[in-house]
């Protein structure tokens, strides 16, 4: 019986085909016009083409929510599962399949509310996967309820007079979990930055967490209007080891800070910025222990060896 080992799986030949961007497209997205999900989808498809990811070796795992429809629009393998539970599924996919490129698409309700426990532990497992938190600060699919990232005072159908609690800061939360290894933030109205951030995330060897701050034109239409109009409302974190923009793209930012992503304390400080939205790479550690390496250490063991081990174990119970 042929068992596929780690190397067999990872080095399997897939012909010489060059994949075009259309090879990654499937169906017509049912997102609202102007929804940030559309721009993220475009960036991800461009990344797949640039990296020539083999479609059948790529898996998009999502939870439930507007953004979690994402896998349906990728011509790869996909898993559109349960609300809040994308992380455990993605971990299970990756655990014994190091050859698969795993992406997790999650939303603010999915990741920061119903799935919080899985989020925290997924950071700690630090398995090699690219995580995109598409955060529009509102529940869209269920029609405008307060989200854990809604700003205090957000008027919604569950808090018509305005929400009462301060929001979770997903960047700060991620930075606080031991073994965090890649934490970045971008905004949907800066497509060049979105793409470069997702690219850096994909290239990171570990759990790369990207929060994409997004507009919801349907329910939160005016939330970022002034931010988008005001060039100083964003602060670009940049560094030779951070997320790189070309000169032209960088020129569209008024506030630019040099931030070395190996400095977690500075990263935490910037994550708390109040008057401006910081975007860029807050923290990266390429050497954090990875649970997927532990998981893959004995895959593809020959059956004869396995049977010998079982018989050896049974010997201990022999009468």
């Amino acid at each position, binding site marked *: *019986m*042929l*068992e*596929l080992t780690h190397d067999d*799986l990872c080095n*399997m030949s*897939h012909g010489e085909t060059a994949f075009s961007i259309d090879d990654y497209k499937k169906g017509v997205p049912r997102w609202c016009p102007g929804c940030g999900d559309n721009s993220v989808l475009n960036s991800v498809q461009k990344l797949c083409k640039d990296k020539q990811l083999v*479609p*059948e*070796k790529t*898996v*998009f*795992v999502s939870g439930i929510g507007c953004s979690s429809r994402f*896998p*349906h629009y990728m*011509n*790869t*393998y*996909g*898993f*559109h*599962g*349960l609300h809040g*539970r994308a*992380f*455990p*599924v*993605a*971990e*299970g*996919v*990756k*655990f*014994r*399949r190091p*050859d*698969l490129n795993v992406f997790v698409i999650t939303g603010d309700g999915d990741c920061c509310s119903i799935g919080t*426990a*899985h989020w925290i*532990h997924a950071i700690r497992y630090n398995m090699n996967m690219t995580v995109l938190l598409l955060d529009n600060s509102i529940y869209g699919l269920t029609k405008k309820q307060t989200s854990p990232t809604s700003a205090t005072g957000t008027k919604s159908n569950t808090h018509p007079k305005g929400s009462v609690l301060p929001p979770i800061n997903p960047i700060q939360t991620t930075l606080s979990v031991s073994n965090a290894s890649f934490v970045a933030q971008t905004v949907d109205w800066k497509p060049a930055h979105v793409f470069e951030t997702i690219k850096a995330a994909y290239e990171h060897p570990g759990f790369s967490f990207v929060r994409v701050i997004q507009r919801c034109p349907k329910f939160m239409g005016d939330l970022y209007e002034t931010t988008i109009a005001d060039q100083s409302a964003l602060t670009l974190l940049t560094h030779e080891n951070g997320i790189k923009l070309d000169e032209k793209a960088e020129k569209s930012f008024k506030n630019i800070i040099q931030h070395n992503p190996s400095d977690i304390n500075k990263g935490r400080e910037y994550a708390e910025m109040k008057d401006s939205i910081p975007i860029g790479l807050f923290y990266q550690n390429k050497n954090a222990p990875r649970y997927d390496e532990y*998981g893959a*250490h*004995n*895959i*593809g*063991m020959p*059956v004869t*060896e*396995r*049977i010998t*081990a*079982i*018989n*050896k*174990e*049974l010997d*201990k*119970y*022999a*009468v």
Partner: protein
Amino acid sequence: MITTQSFPIEKEIKNRSITVSQHVVEIVSDSGEGAQKAGQSFGSISAKMGNGVWTVEIIPAEIQPPARSRAGASGIRIRIGSEKVTNMGDHANLVVALNEQVLYGRIAQDAYTKDTVILLENKWALKNKEEYTTALADFNAKGFKVIEIPMEAECMKYVSDAKKGKNMWVLGMLCEIYNRDITKAEDQIREVFKKKSEKVFEDNVNLLHGGYNWAKENLDLNFEIPPPENAGDQIVMNGNEAMAMGVMAAGIEVCAMYPITPATSISHKLAECFENAGGIVHQAEDEIAAIGFAIGSSYAGKTALTVTSGPGLALKTEFIGLAVMAEVPLVIIDVQRGGPSTGLPTKVEQGDLLAALYGEAGDAPKIIIAPSTIEECFHFVIKARKLAEQFRSPVFILSDTNLATGVSPFPRPKINVESFASPIDQSTWDKNVSPFDWDPKTGISKRPIPGQKDGMYTLTGLAHDEDSKVAYEPEINQKSSEARSRKIAAVLQTLKPPVVNGDESGDLLLVGWGSTKGAIEEAVATARKSGVKVSSLHLHFLSPMEPGLEDIFKKFKKVKTVELNYSDTIGDPLITKKSRRYAQLAWLLRAHTLVDVDCYSNVFGQPINPSKVLDMIKEKLK
């Protein structure tokens, strides 16, 4: 290295020896005194001598209940026989008690009877004189034969702290009383203390011989339980260990779990040796993540299972619904304990049948099987893995505390390649075949695995068509539901009607499932010897329900299930035939066969014993 020359290892059978066909032995103590370790060793030694054995742990609900408390009885029951032993038996014949108070807990559970021999630690005669004296009087009044033994004083001859090691002294004493092979006992001790130092091993061997020699010189008590002529090539283990071995023999690669009593020891066993057999244990952050992880692995083509118990099952329900909806193969082992809620964590119950079958929202058909012996715990994992893949479905294995912790020998299984999961398929998928290409007759379809070219699809828990596209048309949900349901009918096609134990017609048919088989069949055999027309039937498939039941039932005047879950008793306040809530299998059988199936059940949290079933048979046929 120590030698055993200074000890008499050969021993003539004393004249006082009495030959018996079976004996029930108990060791009871406070928690943490090693009674279970001694009892399991005693059971293993007996199995290794060829005897039939069944052990049941006596576990208090608390980790460390107060010392000398009646509710804190901790320990083990070991039933040894000249033939195969299938259940814990009735009243104990011989009990070793490390204090007198814990015996009250067992008396309340009707574990002892007149003539039960009690070997009692006598140090409490000084320390707790009043309680001890009262207890002795109580025990004598009940007709127990109490022998007071200076266990602690004897142990102090070998170790400075008798708390460590008294259990091995007791084991030595029992070995002498039952003529167990002392070299086998030493081997067993080496296995138990393999991770400890040579000094620890040496101390424990000295205690073992100390107990052995003391019994030889001081006790006029000796029993011979001859083993059967040829038991064949056997192994001895508990049900959870058998499950773990079954997981490896099934070629499963991933066990994703979260700690929960009494299922966890399956993963302990796996954690010990799974990695040498090509698999790995994942301890998830919670029960939900554990099953999600297993589903992710299975979706990616790696055979996976999750193990849990009642409260964990409740949490996993949403994911089980997804596995049904998206047709992800998955093995779920549920080692049942008392419920609902946190319930009785360490006690036995068969209370999850309906939750397993109907726990999810909507219609979620799935396969459910239940082993009835420790041997079946091994084989059913392989069966479940095959069923899960063949029918692209979650498969439940419903075990329980009684099987999980019970130790019994069974024929050593041959491990072969056929029982292993097939290697992952990475060939190109036929583009013309949909990911849910439901066979119109059986509902079965083949699934693409990530890595298979041209097989790309997005699995979804939303209603979907053959192409896994989200369905907005009402016909598609109806059609896909039919396909999933039909798979259960297709499984049924592969089953034969069950075989009745006893005559195929008569006055009463008892129907059971799971760990109660041994007790039911022993009671039926006893009743039949006295001319009662009773038979029994034991079900191993609960979804689909095994075929031909209606025809079998109709040949009996009365049909009654025997179960360890709750049912109302007619005659209790407000309870009539109309208001009665039946035991779980009885509900299913009544619906399934339209036969007026009665039930006998309770939730005392104890394994059922033959005499209780026998009393019920007599009552029912009055």
